[in-house]
């Protein structure tokens, strides 16, 4: 019974290979330290790397992670010397105080506009990696008030010698890390809270409380660090409803219901009082002009996280030759973010590193310019942004009689190098002007006519 069905498979075999030579050059831009790692790896692989950081020096890229590095030597090992190594690396051209403003073009032929200090400069490159740190958007569920800080500000604000926060004399006596109020997918805050908590306890004797819905331990060696934290006197509570944070006597007060308490003894409301600092897990998002650059590249952006949340795009974006890393891909703890960034660097190297590529000019779509009404449907629908309107067609629906010889008209044109042959444009084109060369409509229509 099964297996005797009439099946029309996609015609395989024929291909028209075309040599494409791509100059192995990459721009790595952004303020996340993972960018430094990507730049170093790619430079070691012989790719000409231009590293753009929005700060005057590379150290300032690593600076916000100083506290985590001193609390967790795996992060220290990762970040400590990388800024040093990258600033000496021969294969990396460093451009400081630079931020991407506009990107156009294709894999192997991008033109990038960057604002450097005050003026705008244009660069040409074959591939782009954007390693962005998210900036705090808001503290979900927690009213903004004095003494309540997002993690980002707390971690970059502590003075490593005195343990004090900016504008304070000595280190805070009691700190509450309030996790999972908003985002439950992210575990970077739990890991940072535990490891920085132990550091504060050991170095400055701070009494640390950690409040969470679920304690995130799914990071390497985290279970053992969690037990060490508990043994060193850090108190961990689990709550159900988001705790109330308000002005209390002698500092902030946090009131919550203990999820782990035995409810048969009646309501289990716990109040923590006289707190110097409440560090809440913030929602991270992208700045407006970075989001604009991603939108221009047709890279979908969903609540501050770039790239379609789609398993098919692990470490890469639909725009061939562009990868995203750091918080812009997904807010993660630095060690996890490093792995994600390097897997994105591998994707980028595959497209840009080898120099010459074989592109199959047969397994792509093709536009018949004489039928194209330049309605831009294909340009808008193409997931890989591989179609543009150019002036090359001899005939066009809009010409009137008496057009002079050799005149050319606007029509859509497929960029063979970045077309994946998915056929969306061909199926959407209202003028039936686009066909997949390897799988024209006739094949399907004939099969239907014969078999029905």
């Amino acid at each position, binding site marked *: 019974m099964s297996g005797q069905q009439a099946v029309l498979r996609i015609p395989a075999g024929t291909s028209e290979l075309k040599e494409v030579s791509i100059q192995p050059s990459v721009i790595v831009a952004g303020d996340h330290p993972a960018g430094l790692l990507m730049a170093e790896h790619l430079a070691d692989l012989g790719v000409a790397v231009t590293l753009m950081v929005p700060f005057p020096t590379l150290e300032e890229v690593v600076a916000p992670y100083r506290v985590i590095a001193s609390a967790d030597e795996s992060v220290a090992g990762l970040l400590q010397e990388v800024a040093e190594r990258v600033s000496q690396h021969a294969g990396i051209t460093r451009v400081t105080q630079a931020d991407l403003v506009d990107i156009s073009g294709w894999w192997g032929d991008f033109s990038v506009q960057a604002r450097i200090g005050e003026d705008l400069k244009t660069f040409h490159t074959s591939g782009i990696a954007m390693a962005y740190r998210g900036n705090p958007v808001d503290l979900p569920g927690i009213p903004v008030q004095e003494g309540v800080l997002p993690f980002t500000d707390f971690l970059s604000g502590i003075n490593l010698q005195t343990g004090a926060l900016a504008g304070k004399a000595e280190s805070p006596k009691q700190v509450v890390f309030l996790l999972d109020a908003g985002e439950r997918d992210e575990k970077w805050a739990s890991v940072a809270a535990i490891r920085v908590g132990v550091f504060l306890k050991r170095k400055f004797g701070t009494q640390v409380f950690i409040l969470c819905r679920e304690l995130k331990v799914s990071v390497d060696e985290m279970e053992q660090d969690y037990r060490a934290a508990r043994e060193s006197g850090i108190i961990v509570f689990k709550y159900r409803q988001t705790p109330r944070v308000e002005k209390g006597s002698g500092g902030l007060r946090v009131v919550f219901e203990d999820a782990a308490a035995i409810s048969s003894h009646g309501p289990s409301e716990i109040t923590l009082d006289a707190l110097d600092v409440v560090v809440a897990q913030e929602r991270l998002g992208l700045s407006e002009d970075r989001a604009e650059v991603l939108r221009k590249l047709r890279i979908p952006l969903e609540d501050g996280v770039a790239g379609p949340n789609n398993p098919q795009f692990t470490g890469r974006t639909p725009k061939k030759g562009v990868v995203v890393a750091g918080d812009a891909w997904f807010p993660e703890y630095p060690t996890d973010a490093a792995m994600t960034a390097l897997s994105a660097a591998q994707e980028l190297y595959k497209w840009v590193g080898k120099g010459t590529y074989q592109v199959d000019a047969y397994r792509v779509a093709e536009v018949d310019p004489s039928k194209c009404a330049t309605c831009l449907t294909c340009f808008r629908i193409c997931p890989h942004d591989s179609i543009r309107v150019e002036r090359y067609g001899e005939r066009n629906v809009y010409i009137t009689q008496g057009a002079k010889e050799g005149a050319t008209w606007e029509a859509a044109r497929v960029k063979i190098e970045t077309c994946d042959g*998915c056929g969306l444009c061909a199926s959407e084109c209202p003028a039936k002007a686009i066909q997949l060369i390897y799988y024209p409509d006739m094949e399907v229509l004939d099969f239907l*006519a014969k078999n029905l």
Partner: protein
Amino acid sequence: MVSKNPKIVAFCCEESGMPAYEHAVSLGLDLPDGLKVVALPCGGKAETGYLMKALDEGADAVMVFACYEGNCKYVRGNIRAEKRVNYLRERLEKIGLSPEKIVFCPVAPASGQRFAELVQREVDTLLGA
């Protein structure tokens, strides 16, 4: 009316529909002989023209097997396919045909069981209707 062995055209996306079909075949599940399978590079290539042409040529039903939402290798192929199917179902209803003749079925590569179930459900609707 619909014969015992209805002619069903299944447009299958190369990323999910075809592997599901092959998985169903490898599991030895029984699929109707009247099933015609057309492979497409993406669910999004199942044009409105193909779907209507299939019905025009005499198919009793048309099924589009594409990826689940948010799992399409070409980002929005499956969403486009579903929208076209819904558009045609409305049009069919207006010209006096049962909208069940065109159906959109999200599948995953390794879900041969589900593939066979969906085809069988379509056959039952056709014979039942």
